[in-house]
C-alpha cells in the first residue's frame, strides 16, 4: 500500500485540457432534463400522479352511476343533493382517516379508532356530562379521545409494544369501557346544539362537510408545511435515521397516536349528533374503513409515505360505492365484496409503482424461494 490516493501533477494530464472544476460539469447539461421534469417528480409529485388515478377511479364510479340510473342523474338538483349525501357520509370516517393517515405514515397502525369514537361518544352523552351543556360534551369527547390516543402512544413508544397489539388491546378495552359506562344502553343526547350540528346547513352545505374540510385542510398543512409533518415522514420512513438525526422518535410516536385519538374525539361528536345518541357499538369497524381509505389513497402501510388528499379521495371513493349500491337498491354484502376487491387492487398498484423494478424483482426472488 505504498501508493495511496492519487496526487496527480497537472502536467501529466495526458492530452486532456486542464479545466477548472466549475466549468467542468458535463452533468449540468445532463441535469437539464430532470429540472424540467421535477414538477412531475419532486415534492410529492408521485403522490400527485396517484391522486389523478384516484380521481379517475371516482369518475368511473360516477359514470357507472349515470349508466345504471340515468333517470336520477338527469335531474341536476338530485345530483347536487346526492353529492352532498356522499360527502356527508364520508365526513365522520374522513375525520378519523386523517388521524389514521398520520399514524400510518409514522410507521404505526391504530386499530382502536372505532372503539375510541364509541368511548368518547358514550362518555360525552352520560347524564352527568350532558349537565354541563354542549361545551362540556365537546370538551369531554375531545379529551377522552386525546387521552386514549396518548395511552396507545405511551404503550407503543415507551412500553415498546407492537402498535398492532397495543391498539388491538385498546380496541377491546375501550369498547368494554364504553359498554360499562352506558350499561349497554343507547344514551340519547338531549342537547339541541349537539343534535343540531348534523342537521345544520350553511350556504346549502351540511356543517359536517365543513368540519371534514377543516380537518383535512389542517391535516394537509400539518403534514406538508410543519416540522411535525416532516418528523412524521422521517420517523415512519427510517426510524433509525430519524433518531440519529436528533429527532425524538418516541415522543413523536406518542404525539401521533394522541393526534389520532383527538380526531376520534371530533368524529364522536359528529356521529353522536347524527344519531342524536351514542352507544357502545357505534362506529363499528371504522378502523377498517379508515385504514382501507388511507391505503387506497396511497399511504404506504410500512410507513414513510402518504398524502392527506389521497386519503380523502379514498374515503370519498368508498362512500361513493356505498351510495352507488344504495341508489341501485343492492345489498351491503355485494358492496363489501367490491370494496375488498378495490383494496386489493390498490395495494397491487402500490407495489408496482413505489418499488423500482429492481426491488420488485428482488422481492419476488426472495419470497419465491422462502
Amino acid at each position, binding site marked *: *500500500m505504498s*501508493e*495511496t*490516493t*492519487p*496526487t*496527480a*501533477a*497537472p502536467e*501529466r*494530464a*495526458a*492530452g*486532456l*485540457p*486542464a479545466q*477548472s*472544476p466549475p466549468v*467542468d460539469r*458535463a*452533468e*449540468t447539461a*445532463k*441535469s437539464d*432534463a*430532470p429540472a424540467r*421534469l*421535477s414538477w412531475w*417528480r*419532486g*415534492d410529492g409529485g408521485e403522490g400527485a400522479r396517484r391522486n389523478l388515478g384516484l380521481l379517475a377511479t371516482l369518475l368511473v364510479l360516477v359514470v357507472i352511476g349515470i349508466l345504471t340510473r340515468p333517470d336520477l342523474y338527469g335531474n341536476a338538483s338530485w345530483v347536487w343533493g346526492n353529492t352532498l349525501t356522499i360527502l356527508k357520509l364520508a365526513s365522520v370516517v374522513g375525520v378519523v382517516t386523517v388521524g389514521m393517515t398520520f399514524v400510518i405514515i409514522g410507521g404505526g397502525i391504530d386499530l382502536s379508532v372505532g372503539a375510541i369514537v364509541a368511548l368518547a361518544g358514550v362518555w360525552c352523552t352520560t347524564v352527568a356530562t350532558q349537565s354541563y351543556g354542549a361545551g362540556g360534551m365537546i370538551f369531554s369527547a375531545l379529551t377522552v379521545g386525546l387521552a386514549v390516543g396518548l395511552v396507545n402512544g405511551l404503550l407503543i413508544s415507551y412500553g415498546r409494544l407492537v402498535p398492532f397489539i397495543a391498539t388491538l388491546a385498546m380496541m377491546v378495552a375501550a369498547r368494554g369501557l364504553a359498554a360499562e359506562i352506558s350499561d349497554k344502553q343507547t344514551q340519547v343526547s338531549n342537547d339541541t346544539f349537539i343534535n343540531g350540528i348534523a342537521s345544520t346547513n350553511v350556504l346549502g352545505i351540511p356543517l359536517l362537510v365543513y368540519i371534514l374540510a377543516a380537518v383535512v385542510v389542517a391535516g394537509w398543512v400539518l403534514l406538508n*408545511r*410543519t*416540522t*411535525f*409533518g*416532516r418528523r412524521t*415522514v*422521517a420517523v415512519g*420512513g*427510517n426510524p*433509525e*435515521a*430519524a*433518531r*440519529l*438525526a*436528533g429527532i425524538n422518535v418516541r415522543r413523536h410516536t406518542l404525539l401521533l397516536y394522541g393526534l389520532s385519538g383527538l380526531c376520534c374525539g371530533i368524529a364522536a361528536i359528529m356521529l353522536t349528533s347524527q344519531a342524536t345518541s351514542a352507544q357502545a357499538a357505534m362506529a363499528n369497524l371504522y378502523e377498517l374503513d379508515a385504514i382501507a381509505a388511507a391505503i387506497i389513497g396511497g399511504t404506504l402501510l410500512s410507513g*414513510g*409515505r402518504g398524502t392527506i388528499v389521497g386519503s380523502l379521495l379514498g374515503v370519498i371513493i368508498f362512500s361513493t360505492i356505498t351510495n352507488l349500491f344504495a341508489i341501485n337498491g343492492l345489498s351491503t354484502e355485494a358492496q363489501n365484496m367490491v370494496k375488498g376487491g378495490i383494496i386489493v387492487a390498490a395495494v397491487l398498484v402500490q407495489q408496482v409503482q*413505489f418499488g*423500482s*423494478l*429492481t426491488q420488485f*424483482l*428482488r422481492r419476488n*426472488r*426472495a419470497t419465491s*424461494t*422462502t
Partner: protein
Amino acid sequence: MTNPLVAAPADTVAGEVVLRLTDVVKTFPGVRALDGVQLEVRAGEVHCLLGQNGAGKSTLIKVLAGVHRPDSGEVEWRGEPASFANPQAAMRAGIATIYQELDLVEDLSVAENAFLGHEPRRLGFVRRGHMARRTRQILARLGHPEIPPGRLVRHLPAAGKQIVSMARALSHEARLIIMDEPSAVLAHDEVGNLFRIIRELTAQGIAVIYISHRLEEIREIGDRVTVLKDGRTTAANLPARATPTNDLVARMTGRTIEYVFPERPADETAGAELLRVDGLTRPGEFADVSLAVRAGEIVGIAGLVGSGRSELLETIYGARRAQAGTVRMGGRTLRPGSVGAAVRAGMGMAPEERKSQALLLGEPIYRNVTLATFGRYARLGFTDAGRERAEADRIADSLELRPRDIRRPVRTLSGGNQQKVVVGRWLLGDTRLLLLDEPTRGVDVGARAELYQVIRSLAARGVGVLLVSSEVPEVLGLADRVLVMREGRVVREAPAGEIDEDTVLDLVMAGSLMEGAPA
C-alpha cells in the same frame, strides 16, 4: 481533445473474450445513466471499472446481472448475443454479482442467504445439512470459518454481511463474477483475503469485473481498466499497473487533482477542549476509552472493523448507552443514551451505514440534507422549504453532487452520491463537533478531495472532528492526532506527523493474530 477511446496495445491477458458490450444505452426518467458503453472482458482477467460517482458503473453491472434491461446496444456473452430478462437468467448463464448495496434477507440464515434461489434440493426438500456444509466450505475459503452458517444475517456486523454476499456469489458455478465496490466495507486484512480469492478464481479461468474507487487496489489486483465518464467509455483496456495515476484520474474526471489532503494549519493553536470522554465502557464492544477533542482539531481513529470504533462513536453520540464512563461537551456532562442531548450540545454524526442508518430513500435529496436542521429553519413550527432548498443547493455544490437536481428522491442517486448526502447533512447548521464514521465510503477520488477540503475548512472555523476510517492513509492524511484502537481499547495515541502507516497497521493487526488475548 485526443481520441478518448484509446485501446491499449498491451494485451497482457491471454484468455478469450467472454463478454463484449457494444454501445449499451440505459436511461432512467431524466437521466441517461449509460450513454454508449463499450466493454470487453476476457476469461481469467480482473477487469476494473473506474469512474466518478454517478458515472454509471453500478447501472452497467445491473444490466449485466439482468436487473436492468438496456434500451439499446449489444451484449455478447461467450460468443453469443445475450439479453437477460431477470437476475435468475443471468445467474443461470454463469454471471454472479455482488451488489454495491447489500441485498441480503436479514431474517434468513447465512446459509440460506448464500444459496438463496438455488438451494440444493432433493425431491423438493432443501438439503439443509448439505447446504450448511457447502456454506461452511465457502466461508472457510473466504477466510471466515468462524461465521456460523445457521446464524441470522441480521445479527452479523456490516463486514460479515459483505462476506455473506461474497459467499453467495461463490456459491454459483459462475464464469464471471462482478464485484461492485466490495472493499468499501472491508477492513484492510479482509481486502487481502478478497484478493487471494480473486486470484484463485482467475487462475481457474473465471473472469472478474472489479469496481473500486481505491486506485491502489486496482493496481494490486487489476489486469485491465475501463474508464467510464457520464455513462460513456472514455478509455478501454488500459493496463492496470502501467497507466499513470494522473492519467486515470484525468480520464475519469476530465481534470487533474493536484493534492488530496489539505494542508494542516501551520500554527498548532487548536482551541479549547470541546469533547472529553472518560473511561467509556460497553462490555463486548469497547472498554475504558478516554479521549479528548479540541475545537478546530481533527482526531482520527484507526482500527479494524470490529475493533469497537463505530460503537464508540455511537455511544459518544448517545445512540448507545454506556455501561460506565462519561461524555462531556464543553465541560458539561451529557445525559447518557440521549441523542437529543448530544445534538443540543452541538454534536452531529454521519453514521456508518447510509441506507439503514441515515437516509430516507424515497424522500427528495434536499429533505435528506436538512433532516437534522429543518427545525432550525422553521418559524413557529412551519417549515421553510425555500431556505431548505437553498441550503441543500449550497451543500450539493460544495460536494459536487450529481445529478444536481435536489428534488430527486435519494434512492435514484448513485452510492457515492448518497454518501455525500449523509455527510452533507452535518455541514449545515451550527454543529460544533462532528463525528464521522467512514465518511468517504464509496466516494470517488475527486469528490473525496473536495470532502477533505470541506472538513478541513470546518476545523479551521473551530469545529472539532472525530473521524473513523478503515483507510489508514485517510486517517493519517486528514487528522491532526491519531488514536489506534484494537479490540475495544485505545492502544496508541500520537500526533499524525509522528506515526506512519506501517506502525498503525502493525498496531491494528497485532490483536487479530492472537485472538481473544487481552490487549
